[in-house]
């Protein structure tokens, strides 16, 4: 296992990038800890797969260096980097048995057969395919095939990092819960450095210690799931994480009050803004209380999704989403109040802290 250093990496697919727009990946300069579980999260085209391919060695970055445990591997091939990778769609060797599929990466590296047997059998238990070990891989279901792909990625214990490229895309919702928690358990147990690419926030947040949110070729925020949820650095992070995403409302600031239309929202701090900044406040639907007290809203729709309801409403001419717990009363003349500690202030889309 190794620490991964991304040293001023930039990448353009075209030959002569002239402007920032030509870069699929703009300036990534970070260090990822040994044994960390990182998720790269973002919409398609945000550069997350490009970054993953640079780490795995399938792509050579246009600029910058990549280091594993302090050793420069920029010019090394995928094989030489000694990593494992699991792809979006199952990659299995059709003609081999399940057992041989798992043994393949070990045998290719001349691991003694007794050791191969021990590790393959362990892995078969973990991915719950022990009863299938002598079956040809070709006939299995997509779930099972993807489990083999996962197993092949995890069977080696000498890798620098294990990379996952949206590995649960083809898996049914129930099986996702099982596989994801198994992955997480394995991570806790063995401390692999893992990098997991996904567009699905639930997968990213639940899997990773640190989530790397990417947007238009840049990393907008790296943080723990709680940080991303409670303190999104950029309105994009607020929108992208959370379902529904954060409500972002244009506002004016006066001391430690924010004015949205005719309403004043109390803040727990006085934000440090400059004149001329475009100010917005961000509040998560989960932190808005709906009831008979507070500011008036006009409810347009209530979606009952079982464990809670999503109230779609209009607040001072702006659409707003509110999460209301199961069984909570929603009055016809509804009023809302914001939890002051959960209100974030954004100037030109970037979060600003308190005045010092």
């Amino acid at each position: 296992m190794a620490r991964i250093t991304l040293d001023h990496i930039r990448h353009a697919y075209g030959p002569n990038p002239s402007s920032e727009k030509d870069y699929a990946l703009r300036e990534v300069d970070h260090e990822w800890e040994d044994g960390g579980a990182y998720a790269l999260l973002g919409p398609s085209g945000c550069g997350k797969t490009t970054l993953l391919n640079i780490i795995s060695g399938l792509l050579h970055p246009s600029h910058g260096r990549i280091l594993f445990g302090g050793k420069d591997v920029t010019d090394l091939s995928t094989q030489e980097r000694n990593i494992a990778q699991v792809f979006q769609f199952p990659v299995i060797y059709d003609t081999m048995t399940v057992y041989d599929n798992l043994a393949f990466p070990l045998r290719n590296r001349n691991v003694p057969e007794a050791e191969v047997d021990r590790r393959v059998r362990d892995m078969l238990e973990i991915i719950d395919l022990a009863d299938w070990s002598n079956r040809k891989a070709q006939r299995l279901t997509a779930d099972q095939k993807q489990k083999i792909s996962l197993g092949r990625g995890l069977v080696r214990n000498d890798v620098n990092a294990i990379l996952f490229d949206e590995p649960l895309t083809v898996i049914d919702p129930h099986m996702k819960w099982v596989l994801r928690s198994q992955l997480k358990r394995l991570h806790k147990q063995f401390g692999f450095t893992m990098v997991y690419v996904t567009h699905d926030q639930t997968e990213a947040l639940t899997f990773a210690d640190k989530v790397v949110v990417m947007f238009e070729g840049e990393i907008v925020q790296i943080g723990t799931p709680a940080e991303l949820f409670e303190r999104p650095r950029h309105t994009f992070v607020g929108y992208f994480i959370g379902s529904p995403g954060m409500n972002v409302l244009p506002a004016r600031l006066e001391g430690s009050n924010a004015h949205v239309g005719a309403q004043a929202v109390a803040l727990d701090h006085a934000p440090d803004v400059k004149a001329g900044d475009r100010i917005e406040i961000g509040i998560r639907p989960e932190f808005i209380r709906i009831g008979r007290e507070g500011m008036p809203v006009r409810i347009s729709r209530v979606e009952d999704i079982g464990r809670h309801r999503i109230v779609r409403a209009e607040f001072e001419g702006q659409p707003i989403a509110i999460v209301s717990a199961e069984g909570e009363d929603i009055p016809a003349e509804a009023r809302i109040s914001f939890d002051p500690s959960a209100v974030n202030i954004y100037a030109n889309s970037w979060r600003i802290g308190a005045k010092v």
Partner: protein
Amino acid sequence: MLELRNAAKLVGGDYHIHPTSLSLSRGSLNVLLGPTLSGKTSLMRLMAGLDRPTSGSVVFDGVDVTGMPVQKRNVAMVYQQFINYSAFTVYENIASPMRIAGKDSATIDREVRKAAELMRLTPYLDRTPLNLSGGQQQRTALARALVKNASLVLMDEPLANLDYKLREELRAELPKIFALSGAIFVYATTEPHEALLLGGNTATLREGRITQFGPTIEVYRKPGDLATAKTFADPPLNSLGVIKANGTFRHSGSGDMPVPAHLAHIADGPVTIAFHPHHLALAPQTPNAPRLRARIQIAEITGSESFVHLDFGGARWIMLAPGIHDIDPDTQVDIFLDSRHLMAFREDGAAISTQMAA
């Protein structure tokens, strides 16, 4: 109205669809919810007329259409893959069903622009589908299905290949679009969450059988059997086989818990109790919520909540607890069950009706 009357599909001796009766009314949104290979696509193919049922019939507005080829029915379909004519512009793609129907160009132009506006495709009308994002491509396919003015619109996991956030946006738009059209919509998905967000009616499928059909939220709240309850749960449903004896549910691996009032009437003997992950918590929800002891498997943090995977006397449970609880694996913890929401099922899986305290 579309009716399936005992329609079944037998392939090589196996029922892909067991005899099914179902009626869908005009202007309704119907979700087919079930895991992969549960028969959603097979059922849609029967509805569309792409396959002929082995037995039973398909009746549309009182007319038996069993065996009538799909070309002669007024059906539109949208698939998981983005299927568009790649050589045509978005405009021509949307216009294509009307061109086939021989509509005049003024009507076509009006309808195309209306559908494009609805699907927010107006700026892209002159582009070809390959120059669009996945979401735009799928919106083009949806627009084409809409302008066809079909009486039956079938959608087979139409959002599955889109990004999470895009799905969320389209999912919010779809019910509004459905409401404007008078067609029967059938929407297949594997995700319970998606069914709940779409609303309408839901039919849960398992192994080629419809286990329940009714208004979505009712099917979710009052599943008729354990299979339906499990299909309609994400995160997965927690369940436990227990023996009811007097006022307690006994479980060999973990001890007893009191029977809540709404289940007090059921007869003593074996039952399966089940509940959703958000009805477990680390703190008591009500003063007399039963306290249980479980071992932590792994904790997953998601924003402001935690999914805690538990081992409860051998049963694998998930707790969705508010707040951040990064508890180490193999720790023993006290958990509390909001037993007001407990469901009970007989040994054969049928739900036992509850006596709700009003």
